[in-house]
């Protein structure tokens, strides 16, 4: 990494009606560097990125690219100037081929003006080969896993001669092996003197791959440091504005508590479902937090969906509260006291135009109604309690949930499931895309709830989160349980060891919920 400057954003101010989102922020990127951009939600990262990539315009300040003053009025201008963005949610056209996705809008032409498919396919394959990936570029892009799709996005950026690639939470849908491949590609880009802005909440990745880091807080610039000079605690402390000791608390392993004399709430024996769940057996006791670890594709979410009544098992036995049972529908599971908070709050969780009150009471609306008539009074009572208890930031319960931040939306959804007074709560990636502050609040909540006797099944791809919150951790691979870690054994290295030592390379790398949907 050289120290030649590529980009300098200076004194960027951006105001929206009633809000100053950016209060004079600066960002400096050198050529060939991987630069982390961190900050809580609302800190202004997304706004800054959107200004850089032409989605928004800044009110004050300047942007210098390669020494030239630039202002991008549209995203295309930014792209043509060499700034490409890889989004968190794959932004490709599913049924078009890999080649087409790379070349949409810039297809190579023949002399008569039609598309030169031969050249297009050739060039596409070449770009991908240079990244170390060889796939059939003629196939529709959605036949490939999310990780590969992301590579296609990057290929497009490269073929557009990007000087700067902004990666927004690029690893949130990838498993560890896929992250490795991504990091390799990032290294290759560095060698070509391409710079990368890496936006992520995942501390371990940031430390692994980034050279420098810029932190924003509340719309203000906190500082830029070489990553080697900033400890994790200092980092978190700068982001949330708290002291280092408080920050250290967030990363600790959960105190080992033995729950083996509690009643078994649910047990699975040799449960099989579809192609992802091959043979899963485990038990969960009252008041226990059981962490479910595994790579993407290991069958964690699919197992959870069987428990929650979303899909029915093809084999095996499920025993819930001493009764053998198979939930026929989510409604059936809910009535029996089993609740699942899914990983995609946007597509599977929130009812966007309904209020907080209505979202919270939706799953057990009957409990708030008499003879089918909904009682707002009953709702308000419960809802206001939850707003208080969970620290949901809103002026009132009538706010439409779509206007809340991700962290607050997640809290509302948790409230929905807690309002059921369940015996078993499944949390699937509960803190995905949520900033450190809200994350710790949710973690404290998990702790409180388990102390009150709620059994929790926690699925997370962040080992830290599992270690910090679970009494026991079981590891799934290829749809079967391959290991269990208790007490002091709950460490990141151990989890990886279990995964690596058990099971074989035929494991699919396609994401659990990222398989091609028709």
């Amino acid at each position, binding site marked *: 990494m050289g120290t030649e400057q590529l980009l300098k954003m200076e004194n960027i101010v951006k105001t929206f009606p009633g809000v100053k989102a950016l209060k004079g922020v600066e960002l400096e990127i050198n050529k060939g560097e991987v630069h982390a951009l961190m900050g809580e939600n609302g800190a202004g990262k997304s706004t800054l990125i959107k200004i850089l990539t032409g989605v928004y315009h800044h009110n004050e300040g300047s942007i210098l690219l390669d020494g030239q003053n630039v202002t991008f009025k549209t995203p295309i201008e930014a792209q043509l100037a060499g700034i490409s963005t890889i989004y968190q949610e794959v932004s490709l056209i599913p049924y078009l081929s890999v080649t087409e996705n790379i070349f949409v809008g810039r297809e190579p032409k023949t002399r008569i003006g039609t598309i030169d498919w031969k050249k297009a396919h050739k060039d596409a394959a070449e770009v991908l080969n240079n990244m170390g990936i060889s796939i059939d570029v003629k196939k529709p892009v959605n036949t490939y896993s999310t990780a590969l799709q992301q590579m296609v996005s990057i290929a497009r950026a490269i073929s557009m001669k990007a000087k700067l690639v902004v990666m927004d939470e690029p690893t949130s849908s990838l498993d560890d092996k896929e992250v490795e491949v991504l990091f390799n590609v990032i290294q290759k880009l560095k060698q070509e003197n391409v710079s990368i802005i890496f936006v992520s909440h995942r501390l371990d990745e940031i430390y692994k791959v980034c050279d420098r880091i810029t932190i924003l807080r509340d719309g203000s610039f906190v500082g830029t440091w070489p990553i080697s000079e900033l400890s994790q605690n200092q980092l978190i402390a700068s982001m949330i504005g708290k002291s280092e000791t408080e920050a250290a608390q967030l990363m600790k392993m959960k105190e080992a508590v033995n729950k083996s004399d509690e009643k078994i709430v649910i047990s699975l024996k040799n449960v099989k479902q579809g192609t992802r769940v091959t043979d899963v057996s485990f038990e969960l006791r009252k008041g226990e937090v059981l962490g479910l670890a595994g790579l993407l594709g290991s069958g964690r979410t699919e197992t959870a969906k069987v428990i929650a009544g979303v899909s029915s098992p093809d084999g095996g036995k499920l025993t819930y509260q001493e009764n053998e049972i198979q939930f026929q529908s989510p409604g059936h599971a809910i009535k029996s006291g089993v609740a699942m908070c899914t990983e995609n709050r946007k597509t599977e969780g929130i*009812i966007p*135009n*309904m209020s907080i009150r209505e979202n919270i009471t939706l799953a057990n609306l009957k409990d708030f109604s008499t003879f089918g008539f*909904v009682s707002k009074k009953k709702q308000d009572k419960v809802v206001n309690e939850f707003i208080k208890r969970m620290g949901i*930031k809103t002026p009132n319960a009538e706010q439409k949930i779509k*206007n809340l*931040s991700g962290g607050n939306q997640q809290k509302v959804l948790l409230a929905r499931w807690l309002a059921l007074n369940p015996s078993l709560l499944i949390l699937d990636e509960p803190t995905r*895309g949520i900033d450190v502050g809200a994350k710790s609040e949710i973690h404290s909540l998990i702790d409180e709830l388990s102390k009150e006797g709620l059994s929790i099944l926690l699925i997370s791809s962040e080992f830290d989160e599992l270690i910090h919150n679970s009494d026991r951790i079981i590891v799934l691979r290829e749809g079967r349980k391959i290991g269990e870690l208790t007490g002091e054994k709950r460490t990141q290295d151990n989890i990886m060891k279990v995964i690596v030592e058990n099971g074989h390379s035929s494991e699919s790398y396609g994401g659990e919920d990222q398989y091609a949907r028709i």
Partner: protein
Amino acid sequence: MQESNVKTTQINPHLEKKFRYPLNGEMVKSFSLPIVILILFLFNSIFTDNFLAATTMWNILLHVSTTALVAIGMTLVIATGGIDLSVGAVMAIGAVVSTFLLDYNIFVIILGTIIICALIGLFNGAIISYIGVQPIVVTLAIMIAGRGIAQVLTDGYLVSFSNPSYEWIGKGKIMEIPVPVILMFLVAITAFIIIRYMTFGRYIEAIGDNEQAAELAGINVKKIKMIVYIAAAVLAALAGMIETARMAAADATRIGELIELDAIAAVVVGGTLMTGGKPFIWGTVFGAILMGIISTTFNMNNIPYSYSLIIKAVIIVGAIYLQRANK
């Protein structure tokens, strides 16, 4: 990208309050329709002869009652994110079926017709919910086939009859108010109460807004969708019977012709979004009334029907545009 909705609520709650009241938002939306109707009303009272005669008032409502009934059913369907193009054909089938039952007493006629049409709604709902074919395609097919069946059953002929108790449904009056108008209001009030105050209404709204999330929250989406299509068919049956009663004849070819379009227009003008979400029952009713007043205005001033079509088109576009601007 991560959530980046500007959180005015968090940062500056005071400013949020200031922007809560009109000129944008709920108020304009809820009052604009009645205001437009009032304006047309006034315009007509001044410029159109005979407009203010009491008979004219009831006539307009009578005229729109069938459309309004169908439109109420359509509101529910559209609120769940679907659509029902078959309502006109169901009206026709209802009309024809009712003539087969003329020998029985009035309750049998009504019940029998409703049941038959409800079965069609059930069929629609089942294919849409359980097989997963898109509503527009299924109801399109039923619309084509259904109208054909109605014509097959009557061989294309108009079926006239005389049956005083049946005819009363279309021609009768209770205290000067035509029976169809009473039915329209009864249905509207019932629908409104159910939607606004009962769990069923919340479920419909949730399904229209985010079907997957509704399903995962334990809502029986398939069941509710079926109910909604059945309701649309039942209301169409009712509308068909009213028409038939009015004319004392069942016309398989003409009855309910193009009514699905009028109904959709009324729904859309009334505020319910095509993409699904909150149903606005009274909005739909007023939308139907608006369309009715326009037709009447043109009629009474001897402007050809064709012009009213153009105006209706403009109004539909205008109404939706306003809707979106207010969102």
